[in-house]
């Protein structure tokens, strides 16, 4: 069972939030952004759901929580509607920034199309090793952020979070991308960089293993037994994060 509100939070912070990483890691995204002559900000405000602002410049993209005086504002009447927009089943209608509609139709759409290409790749595309690595890295950041959204919004995810003690979990692909899952009073927040002093560590051996895990082709506990997933530290935090990870697959399938 999934719920629309949790999905909306995942779509906002985990899916759209991965535009930050796309613009940093992908040369095609950089090319798209290079056409920007001045910064543009775009906010989505979902009724009874998430609100966030994306700031784009020719150098990259960052997301901030809330609606922060954006150039373009898109209010959305419900979480369901927002999810439909992300799925391409509904069209976003801005109430502010009509003059910048060109950015929405051209630059933003080109970026989200590129994100979709990488996040929902064809088997053929994945045969290109560089594409595969980039796809896996972006998926990693999406999943890392989705873990926190599920812990904070999903009814069963909240149960997992309720068993977690405070502290930073380091989750990452060995010698590559690492994120922090910060737990405080059973609320989780994902920070897209390694923690200074993790209380628990979960690391995947390499991109191939990470991709297989994210794709649901292998199980984290089995890989732990195999030795391709390593854990250290407060194992109860990892145990509960792993349950959240299981639910990420449910939402992002």
């Amino acid at each position, binding site marked *: 069972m999934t719920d629309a509100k949790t999905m909306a939070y995942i779509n906002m912070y985990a899916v759209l939030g991965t535009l930050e990483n796309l613009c940093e890691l992908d040369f095609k995204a950089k090319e798209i952004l290079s056409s920007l002559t001045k910064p543009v900000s775009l906010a989505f405000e979902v009724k009874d759901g998430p609100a966030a602002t994306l700031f784009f410049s020719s150098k990259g993209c960052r997301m901030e929580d809330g609606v922060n005086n954006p150039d373009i504002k898109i209010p959305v009447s419900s979480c369901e509607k927002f999810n439909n927009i992300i799925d391409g089943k509904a069209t976003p209608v801005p109430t502010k920034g009509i003059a910048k509609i060109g950015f929405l139709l051209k630059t933003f759409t080109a970026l989200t199309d590129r994100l979709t290409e990488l996040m929902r790749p064809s088997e053929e595309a994945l045969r290109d090793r560089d594409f595969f690595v980039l796809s896996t890295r972006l998926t990693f950041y999406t999943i890392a952020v989705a873990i926190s959204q599920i812990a904070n919004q999903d009814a*069963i995810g909240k*149960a997992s979070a309720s068993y977690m003690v405070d502290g930073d979990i380091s989750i990452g692909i060995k010698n590559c991308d690492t994120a922090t899952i910060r737990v405080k009073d059973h609320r989780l927040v994902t920070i897209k960089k390694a923690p200074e002093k993790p209380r*628990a560590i979960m690391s995947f051996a390499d991109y191939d293993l990470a991709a297989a895990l994210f794709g649901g082709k292998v199980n984290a506990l089995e890989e732990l037994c195999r*030795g391709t997933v390593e854990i250290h*530290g407060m*194992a*109860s935090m990892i145990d509960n994060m792993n349950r959240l990870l299981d639910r990420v697959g449910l939402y992002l399938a």
Partner: protein
Amino acid sequence: MSKYPEYNHDKGREFFDRALKVIPAGIYGHLGPSEGLWIPIQKWPYYSVKAQGSYFWDADGNKYIDYMCAYGPNVLGYNDPDVDAAAKAQLEKGNCTTAPSTIMVECAENLVNTVASADWAFFCKNGSDTTTLAVMSARAHTHKRKIIFLKGYYHGDFQWAQKVDYPGILPEDVCHNLVAPWFDIDALQKLYDENDGDIAGLIAQPYDHGNFKDNEIASREYWQSVRKWCDDHGVVLIFDDVRTGFRLDLAGSDHYYGIKADLICFCKALANGYNMSALCGGEHMKATVSGMTYTGSYWMSAVPFAACIACINKMKALDTPTLFRKLGTQVTEGFKAAAANNGFNLVVSGEPALFYLRIADDDSLMLHQEWIAECVSRGLFLASHHNHFINASLTEDDIKLSVDIAEDAFNVLRKNHPELR
């Protein structure tokens, strides 16, 4: 230079790689790498090939002094001659038969004569079989639905005893589970009131021996208050003595705390490794349990009953609870001193017979995991985050050896962490 060189596990790993092809997770459950928390996996022995007394040997021929005792069943020592002789004698007569062996009656009588709160015994195979029967019986007896658990609970892996976020568990499987904090009678009352008194039972281990945290001993006063509260509210009190049973008190851990549970679950130490479990209870619960639809293919096999009788008789002769308290105290005092000699603070908690260890110098437990791994890879088998078990074959020399290996492992840890000086 380490006094005890690290073991090599090449052959064990070969078996494990073969296992990964034909057994999910290679070794699943608490004896395996994920639930057993083998951190890192390379330091653990994977499999054993033989065992004797307090020791087992792995596939590479390495010898381990074992403080996990198969997670409890090894209570007298592996291959105890008296228990094995009784089991072998029964095997020659018969084991799994259409008409249960008369030894089943003798085993039940032995338990009733041993366990203070027991007027009868119902036999199964695993701890989960008994906790499940206990919960079903509480519901059947009271015609109520909810069961109160105490925080950090573990009562086996059947659906009802798992948590809502575990794989394969439906919210409906656990929707009648209520959780109260330990040592808080007011919290029980609050749950009772919030649920309009729809409480069938309260199931608990004798004290808070959850994992990843220091164990907290209960008091007689606490359990006497819980007993009274259950009596006042018609709630069936279930003691899960699967882990602690016969290690604190041969008459049951409820007896240890000065009360009589309505139902009490036994398994691990019951038959020194022969596979059986038992739910015992008071006369007032017997008719209810008689009416339950509950059975299993091997639950009345005779060999474990013979082993159980021999095991209980020997535990009585040795007064194992007193022995375990003495040995557990001795070994943990040695471990603590070894830690202090190397500048570490090792916290020991829980009952000495089931001691729990934690290095308190960092809150991530990584240092503790390193020390445990250094111990295991040198032949001292401890668990990262689970209580340990004492068995009756443990000798003074075994304890000296254990403390010596522990000290060596602390020495390695100290050298690996110059930043802690």
